[in-house]
């Protein structure tokens, strides 16, 4: 019964994935015959490519910001919205809303908000007298990456809130009641009950967000296309440009192998964390 799935999956997922590994050992412009170069592409990536190093650095910074803020916000909002009342459900629905939009729409909407001349963000800063904060968010090498990170957090926080709410609602209510009786403050309750009990959910949220941030492409492509001066370039935009703008297919494949390794490492780390602390299989 699994035959159709296995057939499509093998031919259009596994086979390309294996071929990708082979491409990574070749020098190939897509026209002339590919030339075997062994591990040259990887050596070049690791030692001789300042741009790729910068892009990996960008991606790490992007990931750290998104993971920290998205996880903190969603955990905070989930503790606020834990009980099922009309207001909390409405707020969860509102927060989730950006998740259903396409990333291109989100990217283009935020391009408008960030516009230095008539964008809503700078207009708001000027209206409250903070003219100094009316910066060229997407057009300045110093801010472009962070501006996109803010958009990413806006985009997916609501989805993580839902995951956290589902996780936190599993915590037995009598734990909180007992803590209340013992006179524990809100902060103590959070520290000693919510945080440790929510750790498995946090592992899921952090791993998912990390992988999503390393796979990010759409927002960058629709907002800055990696610019200015590669200041917002990420690994996948780099793979795309190396292959389809510079026609260095082998070199782009080598970059994508780096991406696979990152994702595998994060997945392994998540599994390990879950297994050690909770015996989850």
């Amino acid at each position: 019964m699994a035959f159709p799935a296995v057939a499509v999956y093998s031919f259009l997922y596994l086979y390309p994935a294996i071929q990708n590994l082979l491409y990574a050992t070749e020098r190939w412009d897509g026209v002339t015959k590919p030339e075997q170069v062994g591990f040259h592409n990887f050596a070049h990536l690791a030692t001789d490519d300042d741009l790729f190093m910068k892009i990996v650095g960008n991606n790490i910074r992007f990931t750290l910001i998104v993971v920290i803020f998205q996880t903190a916000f969603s955990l905070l909002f989930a503790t606020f919205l834990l009980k099922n009342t009309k207001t909390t459900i409405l707020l969860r629905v509102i927060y989730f809303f950006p998740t259903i939009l396409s990333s291109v729409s989100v990217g283009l909407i935020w391009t408008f908000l960030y516009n230095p001349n008539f964008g809503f963000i700078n207009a708001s800063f000027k209206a409250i007298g903070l003219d100094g904060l009316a910066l060229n968010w997407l057009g300045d090498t110093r801010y472009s990456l962070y501006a996109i990170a803010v958009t990413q957090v806006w985009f997916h926080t609501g989805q993580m809130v839902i995951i956290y709410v589902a996780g936190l609602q599993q915590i037995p209510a009598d734990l909180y009641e007992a803590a209340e009786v013992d006179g524990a403050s809100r902060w103590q309750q959070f520290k000693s009950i919510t945080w440790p009990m929510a750790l498995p959910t946090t592992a899921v949220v952090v791993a998912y967000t990390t992988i999503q941030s390393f796979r990010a492409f759409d927002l960058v492509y629709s907002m800055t296309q990696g610019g200015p001066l590669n200041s917002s370039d990420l690994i996948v935009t780099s793979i795309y440009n190396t292959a389809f703008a510079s026609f260095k297919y082998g070199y782009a494949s080598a970059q994508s192998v780096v991406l696979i390794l990152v994702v595998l490492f994060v997945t392994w780390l998540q599994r390990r964390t879950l297994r050690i602390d909770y015996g989850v299989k």
Partner: protein
Amino acid sequence: MLYKVFKNSLLTLFAMAVIVPSSIVVLGSFKKDNEIYSDPLALPKSWSFNNFRTLITEGNVFTPFKNSVIVSVFSVAITLLFASLAAYGIARMVTITGRLLFLLFSLGLAIPGQVNIIPIYHLFVKLHLTNSLLGLILVNIALTLPISIFILTSFFKDIPKEMYEVAGIDGAGHFRIYRSIALPLSRPALGATGIFLFVICWNDLLYPLMLITQLDKKTLPLTLIDFRGEFATSYSMLFTAIMVASVPMIAMYIFMQRSFIAGLTAGAVKG
């Protein structure tokens, strides 16, 4: 007290952060450009559907809309069929075959779909599947099979074993049990997974960007990207196009909120 103020202001702030940009887009689709630039949150001077009219007659948004519907509907339907068959097999086969199959599809979860863009591109050039909706459908199916099988397998495993066994004793074969027991009992799961897949297919940018260059084969995300260049300063047209592209999602979200949230959340947790 302080806690309440902190909590309520933070909750309101983030709600505003979602509502304000959305309102700008909705209102903007009824406005002229200069109205958007001068006061993006004001109500339009007159509510007119001129932007929508212009978009449909000149902006060429009908074809990409149709293409997106075709690609998404077929991708989701076929993926659900193939994935549910495979998931049923895996859930019922406690033998080594079932485990191997599961392992095989788990590989797909570990390898992000983006890394396949280069080999897929060259394969599709060879097979004449570039500039083809069929090509996009095939890519979508391949990319979403692992996660769909993952989600559906866990649902099929949750169905009590006795349900399957009783049907088996009554002489039903595997296909019969799949069709009359597994599928009907997991309808909510299929619905949620279907919505999750639909959102992925409807919003996908990377593969269409690489595989589609012909105007009459473009999907909505590609057309939206083109708007940025074509109407460099016309945000009224861009917002109108975003409205058109988002309407199916918003309609689904309003009418099937529970499945929608369940689907997208399951996709994240199980992935």
